C-alpha cells in the first residue's frame, strides 16, 4: 500500500474520475442484482402459479435493467480509462522531469534500457491497475457485499453455509500475493537485464561487427533471455498452483448450495425461485472471485512497477541550486573564472584533481594539456557544476558557483564535449539546440564559424538533413563541427572545447580557431587538446598530470623549459620539413 500512498499525488488530483468510475461500477453491480430477482419472480410468481400476465413486462424490465447496467459499466470504464491515461501521463511527465533534473553523477552509472523500461512498461502496469484494476478489485468486494446482503435477506442460514469457503479463499489469495510478488519483481529485473543487453548490442553494433562477435552477443543475449523465460515460467508455476485452487474453493460453494439449498427447498424452507436466484447470485459472486487471482496479479505487478517508478522519482539529486541562489544576468556576466585550491574526487575514488588554482579573467584563453585521465575534463565538469566541489572553490565573476543558480551558470557556458552527441533532428535544429529562436542567418553564421557550412551545403537536403541519434552517416569530424556550431550559436561568455576538434584535420581546426577567436573577444575560452597547435595561442596553458598542475605558462615559455610540454612538442613536431635545431621559438614568440 505504501507504494500507492506515495503515488497519491499523481492520481488524487483525478479523484473525480476515481469516484465517478467507482460509483458507476457500484451502480452497475447493484443493477446486476436485479436480474436474479427477476428470475426468482419469474419462477415463483409466474411459472409456479401459472400466472402468465406479467411476462411481457418482466421481459422488458430485463432488457432495461441490463442495458442500463451495460451503460453504467461503459461509463465506469470510460472514467477509469481517462483516469489511467491521465495518471500515466502525469507520471511520465514527472519521470521525464526527474530525468532532466538528475545530475551527472547519476548518469555516470545509469542504464538507458533500464530507465526506458521504467518510463514505458512500468508505467503501463500502473496505468492498467489505477485505470481498471483498482475498480475491479473494489468491484469484487462490492459484489460480495451486495450479493451477500441479498442472499442473507432471502435465507441467512443457507447463505452462511454457502459462503463458508470465502474466508478460505481470501486466505489463499493473500498467500498467493505473497508468493507472486517477488516473482514479479524478479521478472521486471530480468526484463530490464535483457533490454540492456539488446540496447548495448545495438548501440555498439560497430564494435560487435568489427570483432565478429555476433555469436558471443547471441550467447550473452540467450542467457538473459533464458533468465527472463525462467522467471516467467516460475511465476506461471505459482499462478498454476493457486489459481485453480481458488477456482475450486469458489466452486465448492456451488456444490454446497446445490446440496443444502436443494434440501431446504425439499423441506420447503425455500422456494425454487429463491434457490435459482441463489444460484444466479452465487455465480455473480463467484465469477469475480475466479478473477481475484488475476486482479491480485495485476495489483502486484503494478506495485512492483510502482516501486521502480518511485525509485526513480525519489532518486537523490546530487547537484541542486541552493535556496535563494543567485541568478546570473546574461547582460552583466563577464565570465571571469577562478579556481582556488580545488580538490575533487569522484565517489569512492582517488582525487581526480588536486589543488587546482588558476585565474581566467574575461578575454583569456586557457589551454589544458595532459595525459588520459589527468583531470582535464573533470575541471570543466566542475566549472559547469556538474559535480559538487567539496574542497576549495570555483568562482565566476567573484561569485562562488555553489551560490549560483545552476541553470543560469550553465547558460553562460557552452561546452563542446569529447563525445559528440547529435539528436534525431535536422542539422539546423541540432545547431539551434540551445537557441530555438535562432534565425537561419545565425545558424549559418555559426556553421560557417565552425567550418561546417560547406559540407552541410554539399548534403542533398542541406540544413534540413536529418541526422540520426548518433549522427550516423556523418564522419566524426563532421559531427564535431556541428557540435561546435551548436556551442557557438549560444554566444557564450565561457566557451569550453573539450578535445572538440580531435577528429578534424589540422587545417580546418586552425580555421575554426581563427573563427571563434573573433567571437570570443573579451570572453573566456577553455581548450582541452592533445595537439600543441590547438593550444599554442592560449594565454595560459595548464599542463596536468595525475590531477595536479605540473607546468603552466604560455607556449613560448613552456617550450623553452624542459618538462612534459616540451616533450610533447618534440614528439609532435619531429617531422618538420626543415630540420632546424631550434624549435620554432622565434616565430612562436612573436605571435
Amino acid at each position: 500500500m505504501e507504494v500507492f500512498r506515495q503515488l497519491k499525488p499523481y492520481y488524487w488530483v483525478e479523484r473525480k474520475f476515481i469516484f465517478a468510475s467507482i460509483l458507476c461500477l457500484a451502480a452497475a453491480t447493484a443493477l446486476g442484482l436485479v436480474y436474479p430477482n427477476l428470475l426468482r419472480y419469474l419462477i415463483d410468481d409466474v411459472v409456479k402459479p401459472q400466472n402468465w400476465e406479467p411476462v411481457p413486462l418482466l421481459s422488458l424490465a430485463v432488457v432495461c435493467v441490463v442495458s442500463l447496467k451495460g451503460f453504467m459499466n461503459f461509463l465506469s470504464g470510460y472514467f477509469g480509462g481517462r483516469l489511467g491515461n491521465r495518471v500515466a501521463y502525469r507520471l511520465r511527465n514527472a519521470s521525464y522531469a526527474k530525468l532532466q533534473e538528475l545530475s551527472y553523477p547519476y548518469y555516470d552509472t545509469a542504464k538507458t534500457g533500464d530507465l526506458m523500461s521504467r518510463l514505458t512498461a512500468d508505467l503501463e502496469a500502473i496505468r492498467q491497475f489505477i485505470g481498471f484494476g483498482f475498480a475491479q478489485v473494489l468491484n469484487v468486494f462490492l459484489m460480495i457485499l451486495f450479493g451477500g446482503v441479498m442472499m442473507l435477506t432471502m435465507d441467512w442460514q443457507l447463505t452462511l453455509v454457502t459462503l463458508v469457503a470465502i474466508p478460505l479463499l481470501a486466505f489463499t489469495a493473500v498467500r498467493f500475493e505473497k508468493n507472486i510478488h517477488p516473482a514479479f519483481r524478479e521478472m521486471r529485473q530480468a526484463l530490464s537485464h535483457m533490454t540492456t543487453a539488446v540496447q548495448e548490442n545495438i548501440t555498439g553494433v560497430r564494435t560487435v561487427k568489427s570483432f565478429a562477435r555476433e555469436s558471443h552477443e547471441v550467447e550473452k543475449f540467450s542467457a538473459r533471455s533464458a533468465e527472463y523465460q525462467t522467471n516467467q515460467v516460475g511465476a506461471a508455476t505459482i499462478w498454476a498452483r493457486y489459481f485453480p485452487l481458488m477456482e475450486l474453493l469458489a466452486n465448492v460453494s456451488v456444490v454446497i448450495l446445490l446440496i443444502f439449498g436443494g434440501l431446504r427447498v425439499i423441506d420447503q424452507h425455500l422456494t425454487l425461485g429463491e434457490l435459482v436466484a441463489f444460484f444466479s447470485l452465487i455465480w455473480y459472486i463467484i465469477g469475480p472471485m475466479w478473477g481475484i487471482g488475476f486482479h491480485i496479479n495485476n495489483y502486484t505487478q503494478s506495485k512492483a512497477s510502482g516501486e521502480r517508478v518511485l525509485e526513480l522519482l525519489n532518486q537523490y539529486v546530487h547537484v541542486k541550486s541552493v535556496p535563494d541562489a543567485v541568478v546570473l544576468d546574461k547582460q552583466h556576466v563577464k565570465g571571469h573564472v577562478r579556481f582556488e585550491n580545488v580538490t575533487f574526487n569522484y565517489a569512492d575514488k582517488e582525487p581526480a584533481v588536486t589543488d587546482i588554482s588558476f585565474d581566467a579573467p574575461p578575454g583569456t584563453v586557457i589551454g589544458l594539456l595532459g595525459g588520459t585521465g589527468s583531470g582535464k575534463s573533470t575541471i570543466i565538469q566542475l566549472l559547469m557544476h556538474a559535480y559538487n566541489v567539496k574542497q576549495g572553490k570555483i568562482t565566476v565573476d567573484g561569485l562562488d558557483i555553489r551560490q549560483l543558480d545552476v541553470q543560469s551558470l550553465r547558460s553562460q557556458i557552452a561546452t563542446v564535449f569529447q563525445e559528440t552527441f547529435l539528436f534525431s533532428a535536422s542539422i539546423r535544429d541540432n545547431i539551434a539546440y540551445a537557441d530555438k529562436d535562432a534565425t537561419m542567418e545565425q545558424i549559418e553564421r555559426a556553421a560557417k564559424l565552425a567550418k561546417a557550412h560547406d559540407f552541410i551545403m554539399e548534403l542533398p537536403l542541406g540544413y534540413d538533413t536529418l541526422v540520426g541519434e548518433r549522427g550516423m552517416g556523418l564522419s566524426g569530424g563532421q559531427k564535431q563541427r556541428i557540435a561546435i556550431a551548436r556551442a557557438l550559436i549560444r554566444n557564450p561568455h565561457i566557451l569550453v572545447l573539450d578535445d572538440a576538434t580531435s577528429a578534424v584535420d589540422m587545417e580546418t581546426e586552425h580555421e575554426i580557431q581563427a573563427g571563434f577567436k573573433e567571437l570570443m573577444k573579451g570572453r573566456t575560452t577553455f581548450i582541452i587538446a592533445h595537439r600543441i597547435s590547438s593550444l599554442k595561442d592560449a594565454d595560459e596553458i595548464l599542463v596536468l598530470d595525475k590531477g595536479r598542475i605540473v607546468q603552466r605558462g604560455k607556449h613560448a615559455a613552456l617550450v623553452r623549459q624542459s618538462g612534459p610540454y616540451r616533450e610533447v612538442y618534440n614528439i609532435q613536431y619531429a617531422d618538420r620539413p626543415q630540420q632546424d635545431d631550434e624549435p620554432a621559438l622565434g616565430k612562436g614568440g612573436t605571435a
Partner: protein
Amino acid sequence: MASSAKGPAAPASGLDASMQEAAQAQRQRFKYTDDEVIEKPFNWKQVLRLLSYMKPYRKQLVPMVLMMLLGTLTRLAAPAVIILAIDEAIDKDGGDKSLLLAYGGIMLGLYVIQWAANTIRIKYTNIIGQKVIYDLRQQLFEHIQKLSFRFFDKRPAGSVLVRVTNDVNSLQDLFTNGVVNLLMDCIQLVGIAAILLIWNFQLGIAVMVTVPLMFIVSGALRKRIRFAWQDVRIKQSRINSHLNEAIQGMKVTQAYVQEKENYKFFDHMNTINKKSWDRASVLNQTFGPIIEVTAAIGTLILFWYGSHLLQTNVITVGLLVGFANYIGNFWDPINRLGQMYNQLLVAMASSERIFEFIDEEPTVKESGRARMLTGIKGDVSFDSIVFEYEKNRPALKGISLEVKAGQSVALVGHTGSGKSTIINLLCRFYDPVEGAVRIDGQDIRDVTIDSLRSQVGIVLQDTFIFSGTIRDNIRFGRLNATDEEVEMAARAVNAHEFIVTLPDGYDTEVQERGNVLSMGQRQLLSFARALLADPAILILDEATASIDTETELKIQEALKTLLAGRTSFIIAHRLSTIRHCDNIVVLDHGRIVEQGSHDELMRHGGTYYGLIEAQYRFLSA
C-alpha cells in the same frame, strides 16, 4: 543517412510535415520515423507463420490440449448437473434427498477434475508458450546480428530495441494464455450452443438469434478500434525513440540548459499519446455494452418465449433455469473473445513488425560457397572501388591501392574524403558498388564474414564499452584469452597503469558506454581489445585522437613490435603519428591524389607537403 524522412513522397524539408502540428506546438525539436500504418487487420499467412513456432512442441501440446478439453467439458457439464438435480431431485414431488446428494457428489467430482486439469494446463501452456517466445526472440536477435550496417544506418537504436523487447512481449500473452483461452472460449461457445439446441431447438435458436446481430454491429466498431490501437502504438514508439535519445544525450541537454525546452517537447508528445490512449480506451469500452444489450435481448426472448413454452409444457422449469444459466455463461466468452480480438490485433501488428525484421536480407551477404579465410599473409588490394552510401552521393570514386603484407598504410585527407569508407569496405561492413577488395588475392566477398573480420582488427573513433568488467571488455577481442593474456595486452598499450588504479582493478564494473572512464582510457581499452584479437590486418581509425601524445608515443612503440608482420591501416589527423608508415595515401573527395613514403611525398611537394607545412604555419600564425 540516419532517418531519411518517411520516403521519397514525404516533403523534403520536414518543415511542411510539421506544419499541421505546429499549430498546437512549437517547432518540432526532434524528428522520429514512425512505423507504417498497417491496413490489413488479419493476415492468415502470418497467423500460420506464428503458429509454426509451436511446431517443435507438438508432442507436449497433445496432453495440454487434452487437459484443456477436460477442463472445458467439466465446466460445461456443471450447469447441466444442476438442472438435472432441480428437475429430478428438488422440483419433484416430495423431493429426492439421496439423489440430490449424489448429484452434489458428481458436481464436486467434476470440479475436482477441473481443478486438476487446469493446474496442469496452466503450468504447461506457460512453459510451452515461454519457450516459443524465447525461440522467436532468439531467432529475431540472431537475425539482427546478421544484418549489415545499412540496416542500422537507417534506424534509431530505440526502434530496433522495441522489436526485440516490447513487440515480442506482446506476443507473449498470445502464446501463453491467449491461444488456449481462445480455443477454450470457442469450445465453450460451441458447446453451449450445441447443448441449447439439443435441449430445445426452437428456444435455442430464438435465444441465439441476436448473436449475428452483435457481430454486425461490433464489426464496424472493430475496425475503428484497430486503428485507434495502432495509433497508440505509433505514438508510443515515438516516445520510446525520444526517451532513448534523451537519456543518452542528457549531459548535452544539461550543459546547454535545455531541460525545460525538452520537457515542453516531451509534454506535447506525451499529451498526444494520452489523447490517443483516450480515444482507444473509449472505443474499447463500447464493446462491453454492445454485448450486454445483445445478451439482454437474448434474455428477453428467453423469458417471453420460454414462458410460452413452459405454458404449453414443452419445457420444464429446470430447463428454463438451465437456459438462463447457460446464456449467462454464453456472453462471457464472447466478451473475452472481443478483448482477445484486440489482443490479437496488437499481436498481429507486432508480429508483422517482427517478421519485417526477420525477412530483411542482409545487404552484405555471404555467398553459398564462401570459404574460411585463414592463415593469411596480409596482402590487400583495392581494385577500382566505387562506393556510395546513398544513391548519387559517391563516397569513393575509383580507388585502387595495392598493399603488401606487413606494410603500414596511412590514409590522410580532410574529413569526408573517404578514409573511413575504405576501412568500412575492407571490413566488409558494406560492399562496393563497383570493383573489388582482395586479401591475399581472394575477393573478400568469397570468404566468410566471420573469418574475414577475425583477421582484421579495428580500433574505432568511437569506442564502445559494454557494461561489465574491464577484463570482460578487453576479452571481447578474444573470448578465450586467459587473464594473463588480457593483462599483457593491457600492458602493451599502457592501459595497465590506469586500470590498476581503479577500485577493483581489472574487475572494476564499467557501465554502459563506459561512463566512469575518460575517453582516452576507453580508447586504450579498445586498443588492448584489438591487440588481444591478434589480427593479421590492423586498422587504427583515428584511434589515438583522444589519447595524449605521450601515451600515444608509448603505444606506438608497443605497436612497432606488434605491427611487425601485420598489414596495418592508420587514419590520423596528427600527421606525426603516421610519418613512419611505409605508404602514405592522400585522399581528396573520394580519390587518391598522391601516395608514397613521408620522404617521397615531402620531396614531391604536393598536398601532403602542404599539410605538413601548414602545421608549422599554424604554429607560428
